[in-house]
């Protein structure tokens, strides 16, 4: 998406954007609850030790499990994930918001960083 195309138009759906609303919050509850648990270091370790068992504990939906297994951030968002909570999952893998940006845009991390700099 080019930077001008990102702006969209008043009153139209916002390009490349899912608003985290009630419908998303309902759909994403299990996934977000799992991610919220990662505020606790022992839970982060438990996830690393046995990812499947940890996802079971939170009753993730098949779509959520699949997106988590594939590290598919857009898939997690489509399954109701909210980025504030997903960031805690990304943190387990040592990923920052540029890494997560690259994962969502298909750009390499240097390309994504350059895109940020280009907006200066």
């Amino acid at each position, binding site marked *: *998406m080019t*930077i001008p195309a*990102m*702006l*969209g138009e*008043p*009153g139209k759906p*916002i*390009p*490349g*954007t*899912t*608003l*985290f*609303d*009630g419908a998303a*919050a309902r759909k994403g*509850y299990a996934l*977000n*609850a799992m*991610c*919220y648990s*990662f*505020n*606790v*270091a022992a839970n*982060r370790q438990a996830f690393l030790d046995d990812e499947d068992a940890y996802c079971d504990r939170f009753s993730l939906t098949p779509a959520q499990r699949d997106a988590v297994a594939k590290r598919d*951030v*857009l898939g997690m*968002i489509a399954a109701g994930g*909210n*980025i*504030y*909570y*997903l*960031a*805690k999952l*990304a*943190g*387990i893998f040592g990923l*920052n*918001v*540029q890494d*997560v*940006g690259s994962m*969502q*845009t298909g750009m390499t991390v240097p390309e*994504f960083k350059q*895109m*940020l*700099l280009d*907006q*200066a």
Partner: protein
Amino acid sequence: MAEVVGAYFTSHVPSIGGAIARGEQNDPYWKPFFDGFPRVHEWLAEVKPDVAVAFSNDHGLNFFLDKMPTFAVGAADEYTNADEGWGLPLYKAMKGHAALSWHIIEHLVEDEFDPVTCQQMLVDHALSIPFELAWPDAKEWPVRVVPIGINTVQHPLPSARRCLALGRSVHRALRSWRGAERIVIIGTGGLSHQLDGERTGFMNREYDMFCLDNLATDPDALTRDSIHEIVRQAGTQGVEVLNWIAARGALGPGAKEIHRNYHIPISNTAGATLLLEAA
């Protein structure tokens, strides 16, 4: 009588905390942002606040989706920070001002705002980083805090107009407080940024300038856009500008700008710092 000495606004991007922890304030990437702070330090030393009324949003430390208040007022004697899951250092605890919190709560409810009241509340990077930026060498914070949380996470969000009205109600509460405190208003977050979706990485200098140019003299101008329109222009997380709008209301009717810094990018965000005084 208590005095509102002014308002301090800043971005609260978590990676600022990383840069502080690594001592990268003079690193070429970070310097343009940190250069906005010597004036803030000088100003705080001049106006000497002893209380901060601080508007910010929680990022999944204190609140989860099980209970998500639109407006929440801290009413504790102490607020602690905790692990947010991505490796930031643990920040110093903040002393609260529970008596002032309850005065504000009484006033807000009388004014037909109905906030959640929190006698226990964890404060996240959205408060701790602005404090670290403001008082970098403090052994303990020189101000007691009344934290006011606004939901910027789960839609429907309160409208910008409602947030400004909330801030104005807080201002009236402060004017009727009989203490002798020197109160600084703090608004944190933004400016434009988006962390999620194909549009991640989006920033918008033009919209940020509109906000910065109008905040002091015509804050109502920022409230004419719907939340949808603010998200379109500022980004899904740029909507944190609601914290700035509420804080502007709490400063009082008139304001003048005394300092501004703006730099793209810090992390994925348009970084901004602003000082206003009542006018």
